[in-house]
């Protein structure tokens, strides 16, 4: 063998060493220097995550009666971007879910494909269909069977405005900041009422399953599983039995009022809506809150049908989804307690000072006559409240305006002290803050119309009897009356008394018994109260309604209101509390287009007191 060959063997040996070094360096780079990065990429590639729905918390009344519960339901969910591309699959789904192809397509397309990755096609599926889908899962890519929790209502439509309802979350909401974290397509979310206000407390915590998939995307192994945590339960201040009775009384009475005719026009009262609020004035607890017309939250369970939705929103239905207890209306004479207090506080009137009502008040001049509904003759403040004399309160309102040339807008000031013009802060959403008109408001409202934008004395005079630029919610009225009962202490009304978590720990509701001392004059309030007591007595505006009520046993104080609205029948109000010596209940009734408060609203309050105080 020549030395030449020996050199060539040496070259091969060197080659071997070079190869060895190159491969080892490469392995070193991949496994040791970048090992963690590759491990991360690898596990990202094979793990998937899905959530398990958590049952929503229950809602109980103040006595622990279950009102709303969570009902587990099996649902078929689909990933739009996968299923939409597969026409055969949609055909097959249409067959086995008994839905039209078009329905499926629309459902998937409606929820913007780029954003929502899970849409519930159908809920409450038969077992046979579930088995079929599970066995043929390879034929249905992007389709999964999931558990969802829907709402079950033990008292049908009772308290529906308070409770609100739940719906499947939609695209716009998913994009919004509020639902940024923890929500995905197919989730149920609370809409209006307590369901919306306490969404974060009720919703619970979803379970999570982290699992591995094979290259075809089929799950093969579960890595981590956390079970869902049920949402917290709400315990309300509402007494569901009282709520039911109040609803029944309201609905029945509305039917009765509709039989009556308006004497001026000879037309039956239409009464398209009404509301009742029953409060415990000592705490601000809402015991019952009713709005008419109502809706059945059951309609929303599993998705409301288009027909039902259209019906609810038809103008003929008069907005059954609206909670009239927190919507604002002109209050009429029920507002006179504010004017009365303002007059007393500003020393415009006192207990004894009398005014002679001639039926026509000419304080604004001969050209602007203001009429009282009756010629009352001479009466003091108590009598003016008892008989709801407009002449008297025109006078008080005018003097409040004239004091310091309305520099302080005194009537508005006292209206605001009694809580009008701002939200009560009750723990349900969409509360109307109402309106207490003033110079600034009017200037803004009639912007560009210089002739109208000034606040005139007539504006204050109108407001003094609860007309004009004044809007009040029944709840605000109830709060104003509880301020009277508490002699100036204001409690914010609230609905959730307690929150109980899954372990049974109890937390107080969000507002629980916070109060504010308004520093009112107790003596003035007592004068007003004397007038209010006379309202239900002989000769008072609500005398008829309380004719047979045992006022000696349960003294009631109240104020009627009859608000006139251009082009509509009168709105009737009755705001009251009882027993007068130690008030336990504030009851406010408001009826739209129902005639005078004394004849339409007061009888409803009377019936409610009869139930509450167990009077036959």
């Amino acid at each position: 063998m020549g030395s030449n060959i020996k050199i060539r063997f040496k070259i091969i040996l060197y080659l071997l060493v070079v190869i060895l070094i190159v491969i080892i360096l490469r392995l070193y780079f991949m496994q040791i220097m970048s090992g963690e990065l590759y491990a991360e990429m690898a596990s990202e590639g094979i793990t998937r995550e899905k959530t398990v729905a958590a049952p929503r918390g229950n809602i109980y009344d103040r006595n622990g009666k279950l009102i709303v519960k969570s009902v587990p339901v099996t649902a078929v969910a689909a990933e739009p971007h996968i299923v939409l591309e597969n026409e055969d699959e949609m055909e097959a789904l249409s067959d086995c879910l008994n839905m039209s192809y078009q329905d499926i397509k629309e459902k998937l397309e409606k929820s913007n494909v780029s954003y929502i990755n899970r849409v519930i096609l159908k809920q409450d599926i038969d077992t046979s269909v579930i088995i079929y889908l599970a066995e043929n899962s390879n034929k249905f890519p992007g389709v999964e069977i999931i558990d969802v929790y829907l709402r079950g209502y033990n008292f049908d439509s009772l308290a529906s405005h308070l409770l609100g309802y739940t719906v499947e979350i939609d695209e716009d909401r998913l994009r919004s900041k509020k639902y940024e974290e923890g929500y995905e397509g197919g989730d149920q979310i609370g809409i209006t009422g307590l369901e919306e206000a306490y969404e974060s407390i009720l919703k619970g915590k979803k379970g999570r399953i982290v699992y591995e998939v094979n290259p075809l995307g089929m799950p093969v192994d579960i890595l981590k599983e956390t079970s869902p945590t049920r949402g917290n339960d709400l315990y309300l201040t509402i007494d569901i039995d009282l709520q039911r009775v109040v609803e029944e009384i309201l609905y029945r009475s509305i039917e009765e009022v509709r039989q009556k005719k308006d004497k001026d026009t000879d037309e039956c009262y239409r009464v398209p809506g009404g509301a009742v609020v029953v409060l415990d004035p000592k705490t601000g607890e809402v015991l019952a809150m009713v709005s008419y017309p109502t809706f059945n939250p059951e309609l929303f369970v599993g998705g409301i049908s288009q027909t039902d939705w259209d019906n609810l929103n038809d103008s003929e239905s008069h907005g059954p989804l609206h909670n009239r207890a927190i919507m604002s209306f002109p209050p009429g004479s029920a507002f006179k307690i504010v004017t009365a207090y303002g007059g007393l506080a500003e020393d415009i009137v006192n207990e004894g000072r009398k005014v002679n009502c001639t039926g026509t008040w000419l304080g604004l001049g001969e050209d602007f006559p203001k009429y009282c509904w009756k010629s009352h003759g001479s009466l003091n403040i108590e009598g003016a409240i008892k008989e709801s004399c407009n002449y008297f309160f025109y006078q008080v309102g005018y003097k409040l305006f004239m004091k310091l040339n309305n520099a302080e807008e005194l009537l508005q000031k006292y209206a605001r002290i009694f809580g009008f013009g701002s939200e009560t802060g009750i723990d349900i959403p969409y509360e109307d803050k109402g309106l207490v008109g003033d110079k600034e408001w009017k200037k803004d409202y009639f912007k560009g119309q210089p002739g109208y934008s000034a606040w005139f004395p007539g504006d204050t005079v109108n407001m003094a009897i609860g007309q004009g630029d004044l809007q009040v919610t029944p709840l605000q009225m109830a709060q104003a009356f509880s301020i009277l009962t508490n002699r100036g202490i204001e409690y914010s009304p609230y609905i959730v008394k307690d929150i109980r978590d899954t372990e049974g720990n109890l937390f107080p509701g969000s507002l629980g018994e916070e109060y504010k001392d308004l520093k009112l004059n107790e003596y003035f309030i007592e004068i007003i109260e004397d007038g209010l007591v006379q309202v239900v007595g002989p000769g008072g505006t609500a005398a008829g309604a309380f004719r047979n009520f045992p006022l000696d046993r349960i003294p009631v104080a109240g104020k009627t209101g009859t608000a006139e609205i251009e082009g509509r029948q009168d709105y009737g109000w009755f705001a009251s509390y009882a027993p007068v010596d130690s008030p336990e209940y504030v009851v406010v009734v408001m009826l739209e287009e129902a005639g005078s408060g004394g004849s339409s609203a007061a009888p409803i309050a009377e019936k409610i007191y009869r139930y509450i105080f167990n009077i036959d």
Partner: protein
Amino acid sequence: MMKRRKKSFSDFESLDKKKRRVKFDFILFFLVIVISSFGVLIIYSATRETLPGGVTDPQYYLKRQAIWLAAGIVICAAVQFINYRKIQRYWWLILFIGVFSLAAVFIFGYEVHGSKSWIDLKFFTIQPSEFSKIFMVISLAAVMSKWKGEKVYRVTFKKVAISSVIALVFILLVLLEPDYGTALVYFIVYIGLLFLSGANFLYLLSALGLTAGGFFIALKSGLIKQYQLDRILVFLKPEVSSEGAGYNLYQSKLAIGSGGFLGKGLFLGKQTNLNYIPEHHTDFIFSVIGEELGFLGAVMVLLVLVVIVWRCFYIVSNSSDSFAMLLSSGIGFIILSQVVINIGMTIGIMPIIGIPLPFLSSGGSSLVSLFLGIGLVENVYIWKEVRKDYEIAYQELK
């Protein structure tokens, strides 16, 4: 002197049996058994969960590979009873068998992954292109060993041309299957043998140049499609691609990289068990090793393979017998080229070419043919050592 020694050597077999001393390269044999047994284990790890090919028995590939290993050892032992000199004498017969078996594929063969490289023998299937590597090495070693004694620079063009014709016949037959990866191995083995035969570098360069030219023409004429080239060269793209042509490489790199220093443990490779690595019991078995046994395991395997290759060369590096030297080195080149291409492919420094990793990839033809090759290397060693003994005895006798 020369003549007498030669003559005396041919009388060797009549030598007294007592004087024969068994000489055997235990290092080589031991490492080969270790690495193949390890191969059986890692194949089991790669297949027990994923059950490739739709088998139902988790131990299917384990048992099969174990049987092939046993068959390989038997063949390796059987080869020892034939003096390699006899093999040298009948090289033309072996050349014929090699060429014939490759040609037989076109008549009896069936297709796997688009190449017609398998023959079904009822009880098992064989891949003639694996065995023919050995046959080509024997043929070329026999032809080239005749150049012995001539000065390196005097090896004539004619003689080199004859050797290249033999190699070309093998390579073309494999290319026609088509099995480009295996053809590349044949080509490298030929160049390696030409290198060690002592042929002028000019011949080497011209062989490489001609091949490059041929490849260029094949590409231009459309014989090799651009997409095929793209697939092969996907490793050159620096960005990690998880789709299309890059999928296999991407998954292989994830598996090996995620193995880290110590690996995830035997049987515990996630990428392996969940079937993310394609062909993980055959071409990508090194990815399984990298994932489950980490840097340490991969380097150990690599070292063992390199030592095996080195033994094949080392045994004959001082040999005066040209045929023995070329035969053993040829087997070394077979193993070396496959190790480099296969491992290089799984770690992204070589093109994606489907060839098995010697001793480790699942498959009988590859394993048994390698044992045949190792048998020949040992054969060379034994008979060479025995000849040394004889020479000593002869000297003593004198």
